[in-house]
């Protein structure tokens, strides 16, 4: 018995001892948190429920949670906007979690903060709302978020147009207006519920953005009313999350390289030979050739000597071979530093960030840098509300030597290989040295922005949500454009020395105030019927105030104080100003109903008014209706392993828009100019107006299908048809009316397209993970009707109508070229009747054929992600096809321009004498009228396919293991190192440098960086 007791006692002690040891067990649990789309979710608080052990997922959604826990426990995953997930620990130390977006109606107890009060989930069920994968955007080393968006969502077309620091053109699903340009076709940008300008968007720090949604169809956009006629880009900023403070430092350091060379130019030997053939006495190749001396000094006794001397000069020139591409286009620096703090408790969370980015452009004098700061604070108010505050500020500066009349990039194609940057006068620019070509113009622009916004979400009654947002955005843009007195144009302007050199300095402030109040009631009845009704009222006010001064006689100084104010006449100092205050008001209603999560219907109406329009045309409206059918939510398909998602949706909407129309277009309007007549100011009439102007009306139909297979393969298909009736256009009118154009409602434009995207998780193991995705978008437009005509010529000189019924607006027309006539050396074209049209004949309308689309109809992206253990590899390609761009061809030289460098092989491709067959370029000796047909229109030989595929982003990342960090760098929670690059190469059949923008000068510079990211 005693023995037994002892055994029992011993066992008890043992068991107790064991159980005591168990209760203090240390755990290290890791995994990835993803959303239902399979994208990693950063910033999720992972904690042991009921205890203080917690961590936050990193940028890739990964986490490592360490805890000393007693007995059984659960792990909680929480994040604003996502449904909280609770996982019971079952002994497996790797826990991957999928979190779903919190789409359910919030009851009074759980209040969630909604940053953008217009971002109602109900609209996404029947409308097309697509999310940009922010982790890929952040990975791309580029200073501008706009450029980074290229390829992120099918149908969002981003076209880079110029040098670093110039805003790219952004369109959603092409142009729905006949009018070209951004004011009529640009999407609406909304950040955290606040309408922002494209300039503010352009200056945003990508690291501050949690997500970007692209709203494409009427059902998704209609909440924003008439402003959203061209789609919406919704931006949500990073917020904090409950948990201990985490500090993340992210750094990119790298270089920018020169980019695509495009055209190969001649070397010195070839160029000098071309000059000899072109016989321009202002070129050394002819001036020092034997030909020249024999022609001009045939009887000179010193002839042989002259020839020998000439040969020497040529030999010395041949020895020089300057690569002006390398000389002018430079490699530069790229750096980015981002520091962010996040943290908070269940009542208050905060996010604080600071950023510095710098990128050097391709040519000296072109660079951009930006610093920005942001503080976001979310405060829970009791148990029935949430308040959110944001404060942000930024400063950016762009320098550029590229003016409207002057682009040093073009010198790459003009300076001769036998010329040198450091010595002597240039043959290509007589009387000027290389230094006289640089520093001709400089432009500095600075943007200082500050913004503050506050929003509240209140839930007094279950299901009733009252939210309001108010924000103020302020930006001060300053620019200074200088042409120094030393510039060639000033030196030769003929004005006195003390009047040379001029500058324009302008300051432009813009203040925007946004406010929006929204009341939404949403409730679920009998667990199956979900009803949402709501309404909103919004008001936007914007104030623009601009002052500018232009003054002359500044010499080399870049300061307005240097202006010579004694100058009279047309170089007199000038002051300009502009001030405009405008407001927009809107009232909206919405209705949504969901049955059993299977059927959705959604309708919305919004009426908007703008103070810029005359009173009788002020109010315009937009309405939309949509329906969704989620077949996979039927009971018989629930938990089906093959078909995991099947959703069909359709929407219809009508938007009336007067975007880009000002009062002056509809009513007689006058403005003071800077000038005077006698002692009077000039009150100038702004132009002929059309009092019958109506808003253009866009009707859009959208059908979408989403399929999910095996929980790892997603397919999305969207078809849309947009019709713009009463389309507005500045139509040419007889000039006896005193004006060339009048804005009129002129016709009907169709804009149709298909978008498809897919993504497959090819491999999905814990340490091996591969996703392949891709998208393609097709957009096509056609003029359906032009009310009083079949065709419109935008200019009296166009032979081909710019708008024609049954034709696309983007089509480029020109004659079919038959090349160069071997007898005359002049271009020959194919006539409509099949005969040859010689250079001296005039081409007619019928002789023109469609050469291709100016805007490529197809665009898309390919994405690849591969993760193996601690390595991540990502690559994004962007491609477009189906379009053409006209070649510049200014690098083909004739006799008059022989002093500038020419394209390689011009000698063999150019017609020089009778019988030269199969040549590309016409004779260099011609009268200008003989090549009118060539210069006035593009033709089949002067356009090239602008198809290209670009490696827009590549990144290889290594995550330092937690064991390593634990051992060596205990204070660091996570650390990554990566190689990241953007725009590494472009493959294209296009012969010049830039198939994207079509300009000879510009192409995007590749950026290669090393990235380091550390979280403390």
């Amino acid at each position, binding site marked *: 018995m005693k023995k037994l007791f002892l055994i029992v006692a011993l066992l008890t002690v043992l068991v107790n001892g064991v159980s005591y040891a168990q209760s203090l067990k240390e755990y290290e649990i890791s995994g990835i948190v993803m959303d239902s789309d399979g994208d990693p979710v950063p910033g999720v608080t992972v904690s042991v429920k009921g205890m203080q052990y917690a961590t936050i997922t990193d940028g890739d959604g990964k986490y490592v949670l360490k805890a000393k826990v007693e007995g059984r426990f659960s792990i909680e995953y929480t994040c604003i906007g996502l449904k909280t997930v609770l996982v019971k620990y079952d002994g497996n130390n790797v826990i991957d979690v999928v979190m779903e977006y919190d789409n359910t109606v919030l009851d009074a107890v759980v209040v969630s903060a909604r940053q953008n009060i217009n971002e109602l989930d109900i609209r996404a069920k029947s409308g097309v709302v697509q999310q940009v994968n922010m982790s890929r955007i952040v990975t791309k080393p580029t200073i501008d978020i706009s450029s980074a968006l290229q390829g992120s969502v099918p149908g969002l077309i981003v076209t880079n147009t110029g040098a670093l620091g110039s805003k790219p053109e952004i369109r959603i699903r092409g142009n729905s207006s006949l009018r070209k340009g951004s004011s009529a076709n640009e999407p609406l940008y909304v950040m955290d519920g606040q309408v922002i300008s494209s300039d503010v968007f352009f200056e945003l720090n990508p690291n501050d953005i949690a997500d970007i949604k692209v709203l494409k169809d009427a059902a998704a956009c209609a909440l924003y009313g008439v402003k959203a006629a061209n789609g919406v880009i919704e931006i949500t900023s990073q917020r904090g999350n409950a948990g201990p403070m985490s500090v993340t430092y992210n750094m990119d350091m790298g270089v920018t390289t020169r980019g695509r060379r495009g055209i190969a130019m001649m070397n010195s030997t070839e160029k000098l030979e071309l000059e000899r053939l072109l016989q321009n006495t202002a070129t050394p190749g002819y001036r020092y050739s034997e030909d020249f001396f024999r022609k001009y000094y045939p009887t000179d006794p010193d002839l042989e000597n002259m020839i020998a001397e000439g040969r020497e000069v040529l030999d010395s020139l041949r020895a020089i071979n300057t690569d002006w591409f390398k000389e002018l286009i430079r490699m530069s620096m790229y750096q980015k530093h981002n520091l962010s703090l996040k943290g908070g408790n269940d009542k208050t969370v905060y996010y604080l960030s600071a950023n510095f980015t710098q990128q050097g452009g391709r040519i000296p004098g072109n660079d951009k840098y930006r610093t920005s700061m942001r503080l976001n604070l979310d405060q829970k108010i009791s148990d029935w509300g949430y308040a959110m505050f944001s404060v942000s500020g930024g400063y950016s500066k762009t320098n550029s030597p590229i003016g409207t009349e002057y682009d040093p990039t073009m010198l790459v194609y003009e300076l001769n290989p036998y010329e040198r940057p450091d010595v002597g006068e240039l043959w290509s620019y007589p009387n000027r040295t290389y230094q006289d070509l640089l520093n001709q113009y400089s432009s500095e622009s600075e943007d200082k922005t500050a913004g503050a916004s506050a929003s509240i979400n209140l839930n007094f009654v279950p299901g009733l949500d009252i939210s309001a947002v108010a924000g103020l955005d302020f930006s001060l843009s300053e620019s200074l454009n200088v042409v120094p007195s030393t510039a060639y144009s000033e030196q030769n302007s003929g004005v006195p020395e003390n009047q040379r050199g001029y500058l324009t300095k302008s300051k432009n402030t813009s203040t925007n105030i946004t406010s929006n109040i929204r009341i939404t009631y949403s409730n679920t009845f009998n667990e199956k019927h979900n009803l949402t009704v709501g309404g909103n009222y919004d008001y936007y006010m914007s104030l623009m105030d601009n002052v500018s001064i232009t003054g002359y006689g500044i010499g080399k100084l870049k300061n307005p104080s240097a202006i010579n104010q004694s100058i009279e006449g047309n170089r007199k100092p000038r002051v300009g100003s502009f001030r*405009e205050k405008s407001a927009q008001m809107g009232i909206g209603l919405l209705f949504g109903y969901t049955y059993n999560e299977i059927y959705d219907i959604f309708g919305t109406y919004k009426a908007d008014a703008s103070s810029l329009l005359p009173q009788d045309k002020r109010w315009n409206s937009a309405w939309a209706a949509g329906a969704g059918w989620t077949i996979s939510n039927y009971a018989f398909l629930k938990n089906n392993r093959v078909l995991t998602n099947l959703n069909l949706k359709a929407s219809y909407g009508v938007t009336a828009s007067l975007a880009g129309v000002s009062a002056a277009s509809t009513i007689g309007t006058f403005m003071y100019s800077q000038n005077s007549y006698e002692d009077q100011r000039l009150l100038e009439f702004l132009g002929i107006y059309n009092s019958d102007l109506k808003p253009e009306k866009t009707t859009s139909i959208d059908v979408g299908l989403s399929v999910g297979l095996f929980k790892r393969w997603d397919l999305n298909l969207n078809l849309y048809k947009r019709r713009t009736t009463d389309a507005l256009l500045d139509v040419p*009118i007889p000039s006896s009316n*005193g*004006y060339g154009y009048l804005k009129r409602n002129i016709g009907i434009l169709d804009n149709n397209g298909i978008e498809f995207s897919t993504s497959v998780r090819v491999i999905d193991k814990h340490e091996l993970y591969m996703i392949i995705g891709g998208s393609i978008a097709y957009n096509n437009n056609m003029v359906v009707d032009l009310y009083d005509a079949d065709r419109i010529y935008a200019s009296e000189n166009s032979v081909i109508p710019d708008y024609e019924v049954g034709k696309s607006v983007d089509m480029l027309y020109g004659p079919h070229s038959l090349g160069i006539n071997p007898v005359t050396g002049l271009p020959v074209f194919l006539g409509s009747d099949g005969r040859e049209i010689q250079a001296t004949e005039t081409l007619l309308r019928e002789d023109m054929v469609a050469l291709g689309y100016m805007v490529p109809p197809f665009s898309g992206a390919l994405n690849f992600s591969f993760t193996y253990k601690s390595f991540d590899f990502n690559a994004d390609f962007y491609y477009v096809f189906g379009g053409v761009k006209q070649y510049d061809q200014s690098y083909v030289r004739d006799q008059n321009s022989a002093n500038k460098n020419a394209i390689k092989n011009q000698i063999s491709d150019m017609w020089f004498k009778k019988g030269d067959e199969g040549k590309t370029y016409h004779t260099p000796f011609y009268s200008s009228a003989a090549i009118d047909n060539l210069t006035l229109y593009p033709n089949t030989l002067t356009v090239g396919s602008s198809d290209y595929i670009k490696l827009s982003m590549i990144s290889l990342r290594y995550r330092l293991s937690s064991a390593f960090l634990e051992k060596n760098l205990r204070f660091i929670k996570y650390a990554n190192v990566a190689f990241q690059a953007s725009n590494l190469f472009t493959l294209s059949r296009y012969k010049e440098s830039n198939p994207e923008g079509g300009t000879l000068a510009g192409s995007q510079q590749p950026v290669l960086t090393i990235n380091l990211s550390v979280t403390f």
Partner: protein
Amino acid sequence: MKKSLKYITISLFSVYVSSCTLNIPLENEFSDPYAISNVETARELLASVYDLVPNYDFELSVLSDDFMPTSLIDRDAELKNLYQWADNAITNFSTSLWEEYYNVIANANVLLERLDDMTVSDDKEKDEYERIRAEALTIKASCYFDLLRLFAPSFSEGDQKDGIILKDKLDLEFLPRSSIADCVTEIRTLLSEASSFKKAPSAPGWHSSLSADYLLAELELYAGNWTAAAEAAKRVVDAYGKETMEKASYQKLWSSETCPERIFGKYLRDSYYTYIQYDAAAGDFFMLNDDLVFEEGDIRSEWTVFPFEMADNRGDVAERKLLGKYNKMNKESLQIKYIGKIRASGAYLILAEAYARSSGEQAAVQILEEYLSARGIQEKISLSGDALVKRILEEKRKEFAGEGSNYFEMKRNRPETLKRYSAYGTGSSVSIKKDDYRWTFPIPKSEYKYNDNVSQNDGWTKEVDNQN
């Protein structure tokens, strides 16, 4: 707590809604109906109409026989083409003229339409109102008149031929051309109405009844109504008198000072007449025609001829008679404030011609002698008939050399041939015949391409869209 918050929210909301307004007047722009509501704003709009009137005096002089090209002409192909009367150059030039003149007319119509709706309270305002209206009518008439002389055949070729488009309102219209006779009638009506407001202007940049009379005299001369021309010109001559044309006054014409001879001068704020110069050091593209010879003592000489050393193609330097006037002012950095084309001397010469042609030869000789003596030439004129008219026209050519108006005179009194020279000293290349189609400018494409009702002038093409 909850309840009070609700009330606060609701009341804040209503304050917020009611505080938002859309009636924000534009601070920079002024729209109808309040924009042009008083005489002050009407005057400012009128100032902008004046400012729009195009100045192509140099280009018109190039087309006339005022100039001969220097060796520098090869440096500017466009200018050379214009001088040679190349179709293309005339087409381009005529397009600018047509568009700019009709732009002025449209703006004048905008003002006249606003004036119709304006009410004035006191006499002072009424006075200013009438004055503005008269000035607007004068500008409109002068634009019509220039257009008519440029784009229609001469009056003598048939007054039922197509003239120009008469535009009465701003609205979009697709109008045909009215006959020359109708155009003359319309211009006469406008000028007669303008001339009835008799009060003197406050500055030379504003039109007056006398500048309207001057234009009326020119119009009647154009239409061959010698008596009417004489009547109108007489009104001007009587108002100005001989002494306004004497040396002291004449010199002031080429300065920014007030000049008694100036009837109306377009106020300038931009550079003017700079295109004649190639380079300050190298010289001008054109020089005065060799046959413009000024006698000893002729005060016009000093301001018309600007001797300048210029190199020819071979590099030999010689003195060239460049144009003085505004060109001289530019070269000497003098500020040009007014273009004084409408001046007393013009009225004298119109009156002389009108008398000479209507058998008032004695009176014509007297007027001409008065003019000449004021200009420093004491000469007894013993001419009559065509010879007298020819002499008057020759004096007019000298008076207005380089000021553009000689082109109109040549078009009215066609020379048998108009010689076009190559670079100075190398002879004549082509000559333009009396009946050349280019004497009448082509209706520009920007008109006929969009206006099916408009006709083209003989000899010029009207490319039509062959699928229409």
